């Protein structure tokens, strides 16, 4: 089995494979942020901090202990989730932009603390050994990504997910309906952080070298752009947004030095012409049902109402 998978990976173009892995990791990270910002509506500008915690946890576990890679990832994710919950407890009392700036500040603090710790090798960064796992890395990343997509889709429409959406739409009304806002917010924060931690662990082992400065403000912004570009709260949108933005620097490579210029311009352009994100407000179940004729189109509904 492992042999066959290895052969399969070897068959593919390494450059393409690298882009695919980048996309897979981006999807995991963006889905995590989507739970916090998209579904629960808590703007977080510090998602890179959780990714950083996961990446360093995973790297250190690999260096110090000899445990299977899957367990390693789980531990890194849990570590990030614990940090997320610990942080979430005090700061989730804040709302809106105050929360955003607090998460940003927290991420900067994590970065600077990691830059001064011996265990993270300070500013030199850590070289991460390849994981001991029979399954090749690209397959691993995509397995986790697919699990993340399936999990998010089910979570979104579960009792838990609906409570989160209620908090996003109106906190006071949600509270009046008996939803424990603080608990749900912390749980969503921990869940998002968990996914960021797992994504960070995969990132660390794929890149093979991590440095605390890699997980700065721009990394958080990258993830936020993916979620907003795809459409806040939409799983399919987040996947599309993550794929586009993770691949964009590669596809723009032919204009080498203008690459980031175009990237910045593209963000503005997309926001101006599609302010709710590419798939914001698009409901796939509705679309399918409508095309099958099971549900009237919006125009017909309006006619009936008038």
């Amino acid at each position: 089995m492992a042999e066959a998978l290895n052969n399969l990976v070897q068959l593919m173009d390494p450059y393409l494979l690298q882009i695919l892995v980048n996309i897979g990791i981006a999807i995991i990270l963006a889905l995590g942020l989507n739970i916090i910002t998209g579904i629960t509506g808590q703007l977080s500008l510090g998602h890179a901090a959780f990714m950083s915690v996961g990446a360093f946890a995973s790297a250190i576990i690999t260096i110090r202990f000899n445990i299977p890679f899957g367990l390693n990832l789980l531990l890194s994710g849990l570590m990030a989730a614990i940090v997320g919950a610990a942080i979430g407890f005090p700061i989730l009392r804040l709302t809106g932009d105050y929360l955003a700036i607090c998460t940003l500040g927290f991420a900067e603090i994590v970065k600077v603390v990691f830059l001064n710790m011996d265990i993270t090798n300070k500013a030199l960064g850590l070289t991460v050994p390849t994981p001991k796992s029979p399954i090749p890395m690209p397959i691993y990343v995509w397995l986790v990504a697919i699990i993340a997509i399936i999990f998010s889709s089910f979570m979104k429409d579960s009792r838990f997910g609906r409570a989160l959406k209620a908090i996003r739409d109106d906190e006071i009304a949600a509270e009046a309906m008996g939803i424990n806002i603080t608990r749900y917010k912390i749980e969503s924060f921990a869940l998002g952080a968990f996914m960021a931690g797992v994504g960070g662990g995969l990132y660390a082992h794929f890149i093979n070298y991590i440095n605390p400065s890699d997980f700065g403000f721009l990394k958080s912004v990258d993830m936020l752009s993916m979620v907003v570009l795809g459409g806040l709260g939409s799983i399919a949108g987040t996947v599309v947004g993550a794929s586009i933005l993770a691949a964009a620097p590669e596809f723009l490579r032919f204009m080498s030095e203008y690459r980031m210029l175009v990237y910045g311009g593209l963000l503005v352009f997309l926001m101006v012409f599609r302010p709710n994100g590419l798939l914001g407000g698009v409901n796939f179940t509705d679309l399918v049902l409508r095309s099958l004729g099971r549900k009237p189109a919006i125009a017909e509904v309006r006619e009936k109402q008038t």
Partner: protein
Amino acid sequence: MLLQQLINGIALGSTYALIALGYTMVYGIIALINFAHGEIYMTGAFVGLFMVTTLKANIFVAMAAAMIFCMAMGVVMEFVAYRPLRKSSRLSALISAIGVSIFLQTLALMVFGADAKGYPDEVFPIRQLHLGSAEISTLQLLIIGVSAVLMIGLEFIVRKTKIGKAMRATSEDYNTAALMGINVNRIISFTFALGSALAAAGGVLVGILFNAVSFNMGLMAGLKAFAAAVLGGIGSIPGAMLGGLLLGVAEVLGVAAGYSSYRDAIAFAILVLVLLVKPTGLLGQKIHKKV
């Protein structure tokens, strides 16, 4: 010793305050965190440098030129990237601001190169003046003086002029202000121009102070200034000044106490702590939840 650090801190803090004012004014009016503001500050520093080195201009002329250039830039930026998004969600406007920030930073990298450039030494003669046991340099005096003049000027515009009144009305209630016959779009453009001019002045001053201007200087300064704005209570002009000064002093004291490697974290640690105790910032007004 303490007095000396206090002087250094106030000089640094007043530059933070200058940048923070732009954040706070824009936020007060359209509730947008203008992440590209740090890039305006960086551009201001470069325009000042260009005036001083290539055109051999006087430092005050250079500062004025930088302010005028950045005013125009702020207005153009608002027109291109924020005005079309006035009606859409605040997050899209935020992403748009981030896009502008990336764009401007890369543009600066391409135009000016990756290495840090310094203002020539003769641009402003630095002498040390004795003030009791402490020393204050003419440069620090210049920074504190220029910042004070600009901030008093801003207070005058906001409190005493007609357009300032319109600004306050718009920040109070956007729609009602429009109904009262205020040209809201013009007011917003004016706010961007004002904030950008202050940031540009801050950029030139910091350029002389640290003698290094580089394409990526905007990000950290912008984040810290934003932290200062939130610390003072976002939307409040005196709050931004207070927050800037506090962060500057705290940073200098922290470095003097031997935590120099934690320099960038000090401002944010204070910010997080203050917000936990007083979630609207020091001078911010309590937001009442409407049920």
